[in-house]
């Protein structure tokens, strides 16, 4: 059971900000939400910001002269500035709003990749990547004929950095694209060092920040990232919006991704010229209200402080690793606490992860089960599926206790003993 603990943040106040947490999901079973790596919950500050926007300020942006359109444009571009500050980009021109991290990565593949990759070139990914950072490159590689190479992982769930160095040394690598934090193993990859190595080898360095930007302070200049992709919905923001950061010099010369309104300077029947950054990459009416919501999420996280969020999560995750390790037959994947953030994926003897998830759900405990969009990683781990508990700033050690108790219950149902 939980000993008294002082969290760095006022956890009761935070939980009160998230209306969804306060519910029973089955009769008598209160929600214990441990699925934030799939998508986080939203504080009322974010929900309200969007409601207010729709109730007072909505109109289409950029081309309007009337008051609502001016307000909507200011709100939309204001959100861009908030995101810029949050990741410390140099200019708002480097912040492109997309639908999600997946689209951000596809944008780089289709625009930068199609323009720059040639047969024989190499793009380096890793064995632990999310499908979103594998499939876009596979699709393009098939069309263009460049090669994909994968950084293998060690048995304790870290990237094999010797193999990475060898790839950079031996192959004509044009781009390295890796995740910052693994959504399955929780591994925090050393992206600063990896970026320096990539640059020394003449390659660009792109980071899938879907699981890092929500949880820790990411500074694109300090880490010297060329591209960074992340999603609003995993960082207390709404669904339907993601971000691509790119260094201005790269974005300036990249061809457009999608064509349409907003992204053009001039259209004639014979051809078109492109708008300035960031608009060149934002075709059609953007996700205005969602940008507003993301801006509010950034405000919310910033007010808590990313370092506090990280410290809070560490307390909860470390406790989870401790308590899970005491359950017979349970195996947690990934590195030890010093290299880990936010998630704990596990198997329980030969019980299928779906069965675990369903039995936990019956107790109100929400975890995810499956391959977590990382089939190659699961193949490497030698399992088809894992169950994954993931944590955010609103989770508490009591919820870890509920998880552990529900797992013991599953053991009993599957006749594995109490």
């Amino acid at each position, binding site marked *: 059971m939980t000993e008294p603990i002082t969290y760095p943040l006022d956890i009761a106040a935070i939980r009160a900000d998230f209306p969804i947490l306060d519910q029973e999901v089955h009769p008598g079973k209160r929600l214990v939400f441990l699925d934030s790596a799939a998508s986080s919950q939203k504080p009322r500050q974010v929900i309200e910001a969007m409601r207010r926007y729709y109730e007072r300020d909505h109109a289409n942006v950029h081309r309007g002269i009337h008051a609502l359109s001016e307000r909507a444009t200011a709100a939309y571009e204001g959100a861009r500035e908030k995101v810029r500050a949050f990741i410390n980009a140099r200019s708002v021109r480097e912040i492109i709003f997309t639908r999600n991290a997946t689209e951000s990565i596809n944008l780089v593949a289709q625009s930068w990749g199609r323009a720059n990759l040639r047969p024989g070139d190499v793009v380096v990914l890793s064995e632990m990547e999310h499908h979103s950072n594998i499939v876009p490159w596979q699709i393009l590689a098939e069309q263009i004929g460049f090669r994909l190479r994968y950084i293998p992982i060690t048995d304790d769930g870290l990237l094999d950095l010797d193999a990475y160095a060898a790839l950079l040394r031996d192959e004509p690598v044009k781009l390295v694209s890796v995740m910052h934090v693994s959504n399955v193993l929780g591994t925090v990859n050393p992206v600063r060092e990896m970026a320096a190595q990539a640059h020394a080898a003449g390659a660009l360095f792109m980071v899938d920040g879907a699981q890092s930007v929500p949880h820790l302070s990411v500074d694109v200049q300090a880490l010297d990232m060329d591209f960074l992709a992340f999603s609003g919905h995993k960082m207390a923001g709404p669904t339907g919006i993601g971000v691509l950061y790119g260094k201005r010099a790269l974005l300036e010369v990249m061809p457009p991704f999608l064509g349409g309104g907003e992204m053009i300077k001039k259209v004639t029947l014979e051809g078109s010229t492109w708008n300035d950054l960031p608009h060149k990459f934002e075709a059609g009416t953007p996700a205005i209200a969602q940008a507003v919501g993301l801006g509010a999420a950034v405000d919310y996280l910033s007010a808590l402080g990313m370092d506090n969020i990280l410290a809070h999560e560490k307390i909860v995750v470390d406790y989870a690793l401790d308590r899970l390790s005491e359950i017979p037959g349970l195996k947690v994947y990934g590195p030890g606490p010093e290299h880990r953030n936010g998630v704990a994926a596990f198997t329980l003897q030969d019980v*299928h992860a*779906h*069965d675990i998830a369903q039995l936990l759900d019956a107790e109100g405990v929400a975890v995810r089960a499956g*391959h977590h969009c990382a089939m190659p990683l699961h193949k490497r781990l030698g399992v*088809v599926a894992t169950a994954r508990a993931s944590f955010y700033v609103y989770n508490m050690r009591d919820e870890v206790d509920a998880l552990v108790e529900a797992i013991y219950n599953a053991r009993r149902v599957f006749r594995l003993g109490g």
Partner: protein
Amino acid sequence: MDLYMENIIDHGQHPRNFGEPLDPADIDYEDENPFCGDYLHLTAQLDEEGRIKAVSWQGQGCTISQASASMLGEAIIGKTLDELREFNRQTILDMLGIPLSPTRLKCALLSLKVLKGGIYGLSDWPTDEGEE
């Protein structure tokens, strides 16, 4: 406990007619559930009257999908193809006898999907309905 009634656990842990594919086989079909990776390969042989005389299946997945395959495999023995065409979502639900959420329903219906695929070929699958 409702969700995992005794006989589902039993079929899941001791699947009936589990084994290598029959060869030759009159019905031979495999498929998977893309959202969770459950996989099923089903083979069956007909006797001279056109009734299923032997079934063998292999697969990987959760207790629901394995138990459903095990129960369905038992249920089809002795049936004609025409009788099997009558099998539907409700047949499976009745066999399992527990309430299922939409996601778990897909696990449960994978066996039916594979059976129907073996009879009709997936492209002739009569309605969207049956698939999901």
